[in-house]
């Protein structure tokens, strides 16, 4: 099963490499990884998506918790949560039919065209990873020049917060 694990990490040099190292050292899989500072400048927030059975995910959270630089760990998938990923996708758009088709599909998925040239469109889209996958699927007629995805960020629904 796919899990989204959120980690509060000391904003120390080398802290990120401990997390990444742990995953490779213990043969845990990383689907995506995002990391950025939080409102508290001493902390970073890191989100990992990973695929594994319960035993593996239990090990992942326990091992993460053991790292001295890790302050808190939450498996967001254990509760109601919101997941978002940002994607920018550059497509070949060199004739009217193609351009109209891309625009229509982007509208359906609530994407925005954020850059255009004579020959290309760049579409921005925010959503769950599966929505982004679906958009790429829907564009199968168009020719994709470049895809860049941010990796998943997540937050718990309701009043639950991950903080100190």
């Amino acid at each position, binding site marked *: 099963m796919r899990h989204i694990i959120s980690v509060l990490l*000391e904003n120390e*040099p*080398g802290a990120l*490499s*401990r997390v990444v*190292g742990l995953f490779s*050292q213990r043969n845990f899989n990383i689907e995506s990884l995002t990391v950025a500072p939080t409102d508290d400048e001493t902390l970073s927030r890191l989100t990992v998506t990973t695929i594994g059975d319960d*035993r593996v995910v*239990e*090990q992942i959270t*326990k*091992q993460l*918790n*053991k790292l*001295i*630089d*890790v*302050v808190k760990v939450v498996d967001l998938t254990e509760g109601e949560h919101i997941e978002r990923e940002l994607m920018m996708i550059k497509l070949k758009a060199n004739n009217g039919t193609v351009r109209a088709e891309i625009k229509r599909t982007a509208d359906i998925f609530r994407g925005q065209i954020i850059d255009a040239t004579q020959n290309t469109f760049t579409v921005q889209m925010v959503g769950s990873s599966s929505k982004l996958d679906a958009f790429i699927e829907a564009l199968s007629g168009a020719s994709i020049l470049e895809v860049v995805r941010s990796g998943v960020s997540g937050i718990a629904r309701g009043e639950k917060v991950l903080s*100190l």
Partner: protein
Amino acid sequence: MELLSGAEMVVRALKDEGVEYIYGYPGGSVLHLYDALFQQEDVQHVLVRHEQAATHMADAYARATGKAGVALVTSGPGATNAITGIATAYTDSIPMVVITGQVMSHLIGEDAFQETDMLGISRPVVKHNFSVQRAEDIPTIIRKAFHIAQTGRPGPVVVDIPKDMTTPTDRFPYEYPKNVKMRSYNPINRGHAGQIKKAMDLFLSAKRPVILAGGGVVIGQASEELRELINLTNVPTTNTLMALGALAGRDRHNLGMLGMHGSYEANMAMHHADVILNIGARFDDRVTNGTDKFCPTAKIIHVDIDPASISKTIRADIPIVGPAKIVLDEMLSIVKASTKQLDAESLKSWWEQIEEWRGRHGGRYRTDDSELMKPQQVIEMLDTITNGDAYVCSDVGQHQMYAAQYYKFNHPNRWINSGGLGTMGFGLPAAMGVKMNFPDADVACVTGEGSIQMNIQELSTCSQYDIPVKIICLNNQSLGMVRQWQDMNYESRHSQSYMKSLPDFVKLAESYGHVGMKVDKYADLEGAMREAFAMKDRLVFMDIAVDPFEHVYPMQVPRGSMRDMWLSKTERT
């Protein structure tokens, strides 16, 4: 407040930690530190001949005392030479602080002379590591290093110090922090009361209970509590390689070591148990054999200070996270207060069954199939001569398994071996680290002619500091453990497992100023060994010729259950 340089702060901080000896080797990036060491007398430095030995000495001190050992090495090759020792300590959860020099801050990242990324290289084999970026942080970082190394599940901590952090002319006010608080590090200091209650309920309703003691009992200084629980409940007890001595070797409750080379009775008891109380053992692959066939009828209570060790390989029915000593204490009070007791009838027949197993194999080996001495006989002699009271510091191989099987430790913390990593070369420096700190104790290094040559240069350190350890070299003229596997799995194709061109160990020892002895007849063994131990102030190297064809048994059949064992070259369970 007193003003000290970074180098002086390091040394003073060690003194404030109560460190008596540090083990190390100098080099460019730690010269300021060595100069600071030179100018004081509180912290004594022991100069090894290879940095690996410094880490093993520090590690063995920690294994014997429970306190973190300290090693000091230079950057680059000094630091990389220390890695094996750091990994050895990490795998066995041994507290250690390793101070490594680093090139000057402004050179980091420029491939400077003797620069290596020690933080990166050591990361997978340390509990934590620090890089000093401001000299004034040194006292706090050293305090944190000791705190992290010694609390929770212990482990090695590296402190990497760029040379410019120790410049003699840059001085700072020094104050050593008593305590450090870290929001991200709060080791668990007690077990969950409800879980412990539940565990004791299950334990006391068992018909075929077994207690399994692991290294956590020894490192967690919980042997007394363990012994009390065993005496109170009369439950058969086995231990991992890391917990020899937690329960006295001659105690009748003691089934001996379990696992790959565990005793017949220990492995049989495990296989047939209905409740296993595991305290401080991490169920590693050398203990469990095939995990899918592991102890099919047992419910498992697992006490460990590290939550990640619980249900990692074997699912626990009742997990308890906490320090062995505190949890055992609570278990004891529950058992004492409880009206419920183990069913006497069931326990009696369980013991009868176990005694029958014990009688059937019970550590026998043959002495009639060879002219040569058996390695087991040598260990039994060592046990007799030292009364089970010696510190036995082992290398890695068959000799290690014989020592584990046949030396009957009366006390915990005296079996010093690289269990998890299996580091050949560990034995001699380990024995040195113990002997320096326990000068009146008998300290033996049980080794093989292969392993001893991995840190043989330390004989020189022993002459410099007068470290009179006794080296018991079971010389089978081969990498015996490798050969055994080749005999069993590769139709005796002994690929690279011979040790041709062995040195004359007697002369070698003598050339370093020590005593060498060669023993090749069993009839001479006792006299020679007594003589060696009687020479209290001399290092004696006993080169003892043993049967090169002997195998370690029992040996579990790979991926089988606990009870699937070879008992000799021809018998299988």
